[in-house]
């Protein structure tokens, strides 16, 4: 996934979206609500509301469509490009549908959820445009699995090198090998950091020990420190990789569930409006 989603088919779906927005704004400006207040209850309000509701259902259909491979005439790229642009156009359609009337009610709840969904979608779009490049550069041609294998190899080397060194050093090295974790909780994956990382701590502790050790000892320590520094670099790289992947995924944890919340709120909104017509 890269820039081509935006320029797809020479901005075909951007043009469609702009047309929708232009028509909506044009009608809104020309529209002269008979009773002086623009809202969802005028003919234009009903019209924009209907278009908005259909757009929401169609946009959500993308979640089903993208799982059906090679089924229809339009490619998934077509769908995604249209999904992005028409999703953004929905902001205009829905906002004009409200007539800028907002309140603490289920109607504005639906609107707020929609904005939330679109906002998360924009986050996802930006992530998909920027992160893969960063990810490739960060990995340096390796996969995350290969990085983890490199780390494991360094752990073994560190242990071997520490074998003849003091118990404390051994404990440090063993702790760094056995308790270093890549990723973890949502927050750890997203931040790409671990405040209590045993590897980073080990590196610092070993350097402190080297400073106060005798010449003969520090000779051995320096080799260990070099290995540990290399390991720390790989650990950081692995965490960055996990972070990038999390950035590519995390918005969907909002985008998808809130979409369904929006669908429920939308249905409620429509029922409520006509229940108390």
């Amino acid at each position, binding site marked *: 996934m890269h820039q081509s989603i935006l320029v797809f088919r020479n901005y075909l779906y951007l043009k469609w979206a702009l047309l929708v927005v232009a028509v909506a704004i044009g009608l809104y400006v020309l529209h002269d609500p008979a009773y002086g207040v623009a809202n969802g209850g005028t003919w234009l309000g009903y019209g924009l509301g209907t278009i908005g509701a259909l757009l929401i259902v169609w946009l959500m259909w993308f979640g089903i469509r993208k799982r059906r491979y090679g089924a229809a005439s339009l490619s998934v790229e077509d769908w995604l490009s249209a999904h992005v642009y028409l999703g953004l156009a929905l902001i205009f359609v829905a906002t004009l549908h409200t007539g800028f009337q907002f309140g603490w009610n289920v109607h504005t709840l639906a609107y707020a959820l929609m904005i939330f969904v679109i906002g998360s979608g924009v986050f996802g779009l930006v992530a998909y445009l920027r992160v893969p490049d960063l990810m490739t550069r960060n990995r340096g041609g390796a996969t995350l699995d290969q990085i983890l294998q490199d780390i494991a190899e360094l752990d073994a080397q560190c242990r071997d090198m520490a074998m*003849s060194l003091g118990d404390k050093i051994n404990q440090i090295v063993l702790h760094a090998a056995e308790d270093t974790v890549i990723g973890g909780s949502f927050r750890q994956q997203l931040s790409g950091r671990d405040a209590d990382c045993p590897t980073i701590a080990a590196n610092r502790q070993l350097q402190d020990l080297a400073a106060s050790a005798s010449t003969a000892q520090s000779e051995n320590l320096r080799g260990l420190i070099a290995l540990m520094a290399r390991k720390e670099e790989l650990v950081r790289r692995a965490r960055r990789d996990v972070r990038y992947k999390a950035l590519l995924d995390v918005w969907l944890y909002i985008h998808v569930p809130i979409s369904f919340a929006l669908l429920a709120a939308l249905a409620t909104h429509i029922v409520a409006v006509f229940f108390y017509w």
Partner: protein
Amino acid sequence: MEAVVTYLTRLSRGGVSRKPEELEAETLRFGRATNAEVYLADPRVRLEHAVIHHRPGGLFVEAEEDADIRVNGISVPARAVDAGDVIGIGPYDVTVVEAPEGKDVAIDVELVRPLGDDYEALAARSVTNLADRGVSKRAWSWGWALAIIALFLVAPIVFFIQHEEPKPRSEIAFRLDQSWDSGTISTAHRFISMQCNVCHEEAFVQVKDEACFSCHEKITHHFDPQAPELAEVGLYQDAAASACQSCHKEHNGDAAISIMQDSFCADCHADIEAAAPDTNLLNASNFEEEHPEFRPVVMLDPLAQQSKRISLNEPEKLVERSGLRFPHDVHLKKDGIRGPKGREELVCESCHVSEPSGASFFPIEMEAQCERCHQLKFEPRRPDRVLPHGQVDNAQLLIREFYSDFALRGGVSDAGGREELISRRRPGSEPVRQEVVKANPKEWAEQQARKVADQAFGRTMCGTCHEVMTGEGAGPLNWSVVPASVSNRWLPGGRYDHKSHFEIVACENCHAADKSHLATDVLLPKIEICQDCHSGENAADKVPSNCVTCHDYHLDGEPMMKPVAAAAWTGPDMPAGQRDAEYGTGDNGS
């Protein structure tokens, strides 16, 4: 001591490989240190971890400082051991076995818990995928959706069903359907804002007009929807058939609940003849750009009470016959006018008294405004006696009674002579015959009365202010006062608030009273005077004024909207509804 140390290694194909080593040493030291007798190459083992001593009593194992050993699974600092005991040192099991002949001690050393695969351990520990955190998009989707449906859809519907009867606001603390409220109720209706079902009587049915009529019972139409001449006109049918809701939308907060746009009125009034072919209305769509000159309702015949709308553009026809004579200019003279206490200067407010609202004025009344100067005295000898105003017959009777009483009390002599020269006129006959009458009190009184109450008196006394009719049938004495028909409102179809204009403009800006010599003048300003300050609804440089600034939609005198007229429609054969004469055919006084 002589020792045999056997290193055991489990083979992957099964079986155990044994690698015995014989050695001689003071003690058996276990550790990672290269000088240890039993070298245990594992980071979980200390450099110097434990030591076995051979003492006269037998073998004795001892943990080094800070190290931890287990004997038969029990953590101990030191203990005597014998064949069969298992010493746990880190991941190693050291088993004491029977020493062969010539040896002091024999042990088997086996790494029972080797370090796992670093990569597999690291991969197992690390969670590198958000999906592996156990957060399910599907579960959250269902959760959110169901929560919203339960809270905002099911709960309000249940509440509605349970509260079908409207309840007083005080009994409803919290409404579960409050989340459906699309906007604030207008101020006028806020008192029922907690009782949704006062208006929303049935689910999925638009608010019915009957709900409005339950309070607004007497609201009237804009025109008579049953008038035959309107039955064919689609616009009227639409307007007559439309529900209250088509014009009045609630839940828009303090924004007007009524239509204010000129365009709504202009739909018909921009080309009113197309909408109502027989109308006497003129086109109007914008106060400055398209609005006819004012056409006041002018009284043409006060006796027949006949009035007509005449445009201010036709000054020659603008003659109001109110039955009064009144020169505004004389009363408003700059140097004043003679009053009961000398000269006084009159201003508009001297006679035109504002109503409390300030919108208009109390009607001018003889007693309140005129009588102070214009007293109806008829007998110079008794200036305290005045005639009752507004009662010609009664006044004539009063004069007779006065002189009869006057004569009876000896007033005849007071009158200064026993003989009077009487001018007498028989009904319907001229000339006047003069005769000398003997001064008899009854006769004298009669003469005096006739003299005072005659036509000339009427002309000079009443006629100062009133038109006086003479001739056959005009009262018992062949003369009477034309009833005053002062127009209370020349433009009854328009609303005008004098008070809001007082502070900005003087009376004479609009009403040229100081130059008016005749009561027949219609002292109204032309529309261009208004247009100096007021323009159409979109004006930027003047006061924006739309149709409803001055005109109402629901007109007095038109049929009630309830019952809904469209339902009662029976076509062009229906007789025309009675109209208020003042409004013509629903004319709005433009």
